[in-house]
């Protein structure tokens, strides 16, 4: 028994990586896995090649990422640099440090992306990669019903018309599917109409969620489901294998999503050229707005190797996502890199880069750290009430406003 303990202690000590003197070991955490992780590893290796004396230890946590990071933050033992997306939640509580005080070149990164890293006027993260919401369409479905492909300047009316034209219940084909994420998707459609989901200072739904503009945006979509029966509701989508599978197999003509669909096609061994990308339609009397999805590299306030960490962040900002873009895995964060790699000529990738110009600059969850607990769930519940419970849009949204006000008092 004792011998076993000794062996174990020695084994564990040996494994714990006691490094040579003088080397700084940076713990870096990411939720990347498999191919994505590979490109992150390549980037980290390039950094290490240029910075001898700093060793990057990459921790990949594909599932349970939040749990691990939060627990380690609570225990005062976070990774030095880690990937995060909801910056206000951590920034407000002092878990991550503002980065504008350090010599990091944020100008290399597209301004829209930096905007999302700002909280209370300070920048808290270096963008790692991003995706923009666009409309992916299946060319074969369009060809089958003789509908011309959409163009970037199309309107909501065009969109609705095309959706209805492409819906054929007898063949179980839908024009589109209901938007998948209340927060991300409905904010952009509301903003296109001049509305928004929550007040600019993030304190209340009242007057915003239930404003005529927002109501009309939400109603546009719920009508597509309930009245025109041309958009598949969420439970049908899920029971048909998810929106990606539906689009890939031609059960739906168009879906709104981001860059990840391309990766899905590759995994499915399908030809990307059978699909097209177009920017979101704009309303007749409004401008296009689309959401983004970003992740940032952040610096933990409790890190004990801040100098080395800042070197890494500096390097990442300068690199602008070149490594992952060269690998075709993700878009670069720097427009210059995009130009260098000729991405503006790519029919699909170029759209995402163009979409940056119409990006929503301050989504609801960046306006208040309480978005998820005091607002989002009521919006989601309200949508359920409308789609499943059959309640009128205005009534359900007013209900959400009420609930949220009550919750805030608690």
């Amino acid at each position: 028994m004792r011998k076993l303990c000794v062996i174990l202690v020695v084994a564990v000590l040996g494994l714990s990586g006691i490094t040579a003197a003088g080397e700084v070991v940076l713990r870096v955490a990411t939720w990347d896995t498999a191919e994505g992780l590979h490109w992150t590893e390549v980037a980290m290796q390039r950094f290490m090649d240029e910075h001898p004396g700093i060793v990057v230890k990459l921790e990949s946590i594909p599932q349970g990422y939040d749990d691990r990071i939060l627990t380690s933050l609570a225990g005062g033992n976070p990774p030095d640099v880690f990937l995060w997306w909801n910056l206000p939640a951590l920034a407000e509580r002092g878990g991550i440090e503002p980065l504008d005080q350090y010599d990091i070149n944020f100008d290399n990164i597209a301004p829209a992306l930096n905007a999302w890293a700002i909280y209370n006027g300070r920048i808290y993260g270096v963008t790692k990669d991003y995706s923009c919401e666009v409309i992916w369409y299946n060319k074969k479905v369009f060809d089958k019903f003789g509908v011309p492909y959409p163009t970037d300047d199309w309107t909501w009316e065009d969109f609705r018309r095309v959706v209805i034209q492409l819906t054929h219940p007898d063949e179980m084909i839908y024009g589109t599917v209901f938007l998948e994420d209340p927060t991300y998707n409905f904010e952009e459609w509301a903003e296109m109409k001049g509305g928004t989901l929550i007040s600019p200072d993030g304190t209340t739904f009242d007057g915003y969620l239930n404003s005529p503009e927002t109501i009309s945006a939400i109603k546009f979509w719920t009508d597509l489901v309930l009245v025109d029966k041309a958009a598949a509701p969420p439970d049908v989508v899920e029971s048909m294998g998810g929106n990606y599978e539906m689009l890939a197999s031609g059960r739906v003509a168009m879906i709104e999503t981001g860059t990840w669909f391309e990766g899905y096609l590759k995994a499915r061994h399908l030809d990307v050229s059978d699909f097209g990308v177009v920017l979101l339609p704009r309303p007749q009397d409004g401008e296009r707005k689309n959401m983004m999805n970003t992740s940032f590299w952040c610096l933990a306030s409790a890190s004990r190797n801040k100098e080395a960490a800042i070197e890494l962040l500096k390097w990442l900002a300068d690199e602008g996502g070149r490594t992952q873009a060269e690998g075709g895995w993700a878009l670069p964060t720097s427009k210059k890199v995009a130009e260098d790699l000729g991405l503006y000529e790519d029919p699909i990738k170029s759209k995402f880069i163009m979409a940056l110009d119409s990006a929503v600059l301050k989504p609801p969850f960046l306006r208040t750290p309480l978005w998820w607990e005091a607002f989002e769930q009521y919006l989601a519940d309200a949508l359920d009430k409308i789609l499943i419970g059959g309640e009128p849009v205005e009534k359900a949204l007013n209900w959400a406003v009420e609930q949220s006000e009550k919750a805030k008092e608690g």
Partner: protein
Amino acid sequence: MRSQRLLRLRRKFWRTQLYVLLIVLSAIYLVPFFWAFTTSLKDRGAIFEYPPRLFPREFRFQNYLEAFSMYPWLTFFRNSVIITTLSVLGTLLSSPFIAFGFAVLRFPGRRALFFLVLLTMMIPYYTTLIPRYMLFKQLGWIDTFYPLFVPDFFGNAFFIFLLRQYFMGIPRSLFEAAKIDGASTLRIYWNIYFPLARPAVITVGILQFMTVWSDFIGPLIFLQSPEHYTLVLGLNAFRGVYFTYWHYLCAMALVISIPPIIFFFIGQKRIIGGITISGLK
């Protein structure tokens, strides 16, 4: 004589019914295994098809090789083996011992203390996760295996309860008689009660093995370096942000499931062996 034959026929009838029932149930219970197996042989594109086909178009046994080569599974295996063995050892050493104390020996505060031990079972895992993390950090045990097996050397409420019930089912007269014969309590425990409780002890071993082998949260939170990861944590790596590599996941999940199944198979045969002993009066 006729009644004898009738009896035998009747018995045969029920026996056949029993077999039929068992086979039908087995089929139902094997569905997930079967599904996991066919998924593991599918082509990467086919795994996303909807509705999913039951049989893959081609049998890609090389999926197993590919999955295997993607991560250091042997290291994960070694880690899992170390942690699980130590944990099971600790549990088997401590839990019956403590259960015996609660079940057979009489001392003031017996019930209250037992309840106190049970209390640990009644607190949700996530509640104490953060303070436990801090405790282990103080001890310097983060990113080591210690948090995952050392506590088991001090008993496990669930098993202490189980074994106590078992011990209480043994007549106390046995204890008293042995005492009169001059045996020490420790000897009585080790030479009489522990062997008598063999079915329960083996059950405890099997259950703890399974629990620790497939534990996800513990390794997720308390381990950091990839070289310390366990098999289940490694399995996690097949779940990407955008989609999951189901074929690899199922392949390795099946492989990982083999040790607990073998352990169970061997162990439960030993449980049957307990019949003759408890028949002794």
